[in-house]
């Protein structure tokens, strides 16, 4: 190649290196610009969004971005530092225990059916057998003789993880179950299909679905506070190592008395009230 071409080539190469360099520097600054990233559980997400809204009202110069993805995705994001705080709606598994966790609220898990479904209560065993696929019709449990449509969350969901832990124990959820990717969509499906059954966060139950009694206990906040309703799971904020200053500030805001009052109003169980499950 002729000499001018070599020179041109070198010029362009150095330009590329400069761009790459600028990129790296920009990346470092960028994390400050993009604010606090809180990602994970779709159960925690609506509430975290609400807390972030109030936090940013109080501190107009700060930005908190809340993303979804599911509890496992949030834990993964925290580990890979794609997120500053990961949100989880289930307990951490043994292999995840190297991450730091803070309980920010408690939430009940409700088993829901269509409002027109006559059934009012089921036993934990019956729920388990329905989700395993042993019971396939509503008839044996007191309903009409129609085929049960089982709706579950995706495998990475904290809600599913909590459900698996507390209800299914060692049994697998049936492979033929309908899978949806958030509480809202599960609720929408159960609200429109009279034959369906699913589970969602108690805080998201509204009058489009019916939350049934489990072993005779009504899923309500009083029953949870009185330790009668057993299906509850923690909402965790997870960080890889000690949280950054911005993260720590947000976490302490969420744990503050005023926000925890909002937590209760939103339909969750605040942290300071629960004396049974103390975390260090």
């Amino acid at each position, binding site marked *: 190649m002729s000499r001018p071409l070599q020179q041109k080539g070198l010029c362009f190469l150095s330009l590329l290196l400069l761009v790459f360099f600028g990129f790296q520097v920009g*990346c470092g600054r*960028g*994390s400050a*610009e*993009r*604010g606090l*990233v809180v*990602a994970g559980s779709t159960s925690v997400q*609506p509430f975290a*969004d*609400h807390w972030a*809204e109030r936090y940013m009202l109080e501190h107009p110069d700060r*930005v908190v*971005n*809340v*993303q*979804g993805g599911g509890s496992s995705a949030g834990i993964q994001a925290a580990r*890979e*530092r*794609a997120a500053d705080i990961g949100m989880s709606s289930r307990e951490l598994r043994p292999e995840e225990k190297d991450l730091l966790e803070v309980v920010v609220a408690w939430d009940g898990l409700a088993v829901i059916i269509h409002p027109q479904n006559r059934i009012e209560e089921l036993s934990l065993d019956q729920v388990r057998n329905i989700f395993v696929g042993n019971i396939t019709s509503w008839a044996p449990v007191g309903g009409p003789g129609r085929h049960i449509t089982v709706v579950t969350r995706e495998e990475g969901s904290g809600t599913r993880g909590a459900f698996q832990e507390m209800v299914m124990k060692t049994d697998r959820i049936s492979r033929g179950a309908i899978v949806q990717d*958030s*509480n*809202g*969509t599960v*609720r*929408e499906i159960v*609200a429109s299909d009279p034959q369906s059954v699913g589970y969602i966060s108690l805080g998201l139950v509204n009058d*489009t679905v019916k939350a049934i009694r489990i072993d005779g206990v009504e899923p309500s906040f009083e029953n949870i506070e009185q330790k009668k309703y057993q299906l509850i799971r923690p909402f965790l904020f997870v960080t890889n190592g000690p949280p950054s200053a911005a993260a720590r500030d947000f976490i302490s805001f969420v744990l503050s008395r005023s926000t925890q009052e909002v937590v209760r109003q939103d339909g969750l169980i605040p942290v300071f009230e629960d004396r049974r499950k103390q975390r260090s």
Partner: protein
Amino acid sequence: MRVRIDPRAEQQFFRALLWLLTGVTIFILFFIIFYVLKKGLPVVSLEFLTKNPVEMGKAGGIFSTILGTGALTLLAILIASPLGIGSAIYLTEYTRENWVTRVIRFGSECLAGIPSIIFGLFGFIFFVVKLGLGWSLLSGGLTLAFMILPTIIRTSEEAIRSVPYCYREVSFSLGGTRWQTVTRVVLPSALPGIATGIMLGIGRSIGETAAVIFTAGSSLHIPTSLFSSSRTMSVHFYILAREGISMSKAYGTAAVLIVAILAINIVAYTLMNRFMRKYC
């Protein structure tokens, strides 16, 4: 014995059948547009277009999502168009047709047909996690640019190749250099085809949902920098509709989307008609 059908009768029959099928097709296609517009347009107001979403989208407008959509699409087009058109020009005008160009053509054809979720997976792992860009306009814009680049290369190449060689011969015989020929003869003739490719790219970027959620995130704040996360209208519609947050706002978002796409297509169509009338 072979049955002889009167050709006229046969034509009557098939004509009726084909018109019936066509009627069904047109009906379905138009029904979707009209249904969404009927339910959505009443919701759209100046306030809807200029206010930010509040309470996860239950109230307020969709301003930040409009910005997000615009920013993301613009970024994708700005990155992919020069790269795509430039490489198409080089591959057709400046090189001979050999196995390398054939491989590149086949490769870009394949990549143009790859499901967008794979680009989303690539973008998520490569940009968000490995390069540490996080959920941002940059991650989303780069992912979308990578996604539409093959399409732009392919359509540009088709358009440039379909320009008759005699055009170039005339230009060369008049003493024009290669670049002069390209810019003053080939490109203007190929412009409608190239523009189609860019329109396809814009359409795909605006409508893309899965790849965008995983790379640009779903933050509802107004994006302030390339590193901010942002939600697009398609993502917003998906989240609102599926979680049952607000059906009316969902339809409103969809209506704005459809009108925007309609407007872009009409503008592109008339511009191309005017351009072609001037040059052809």
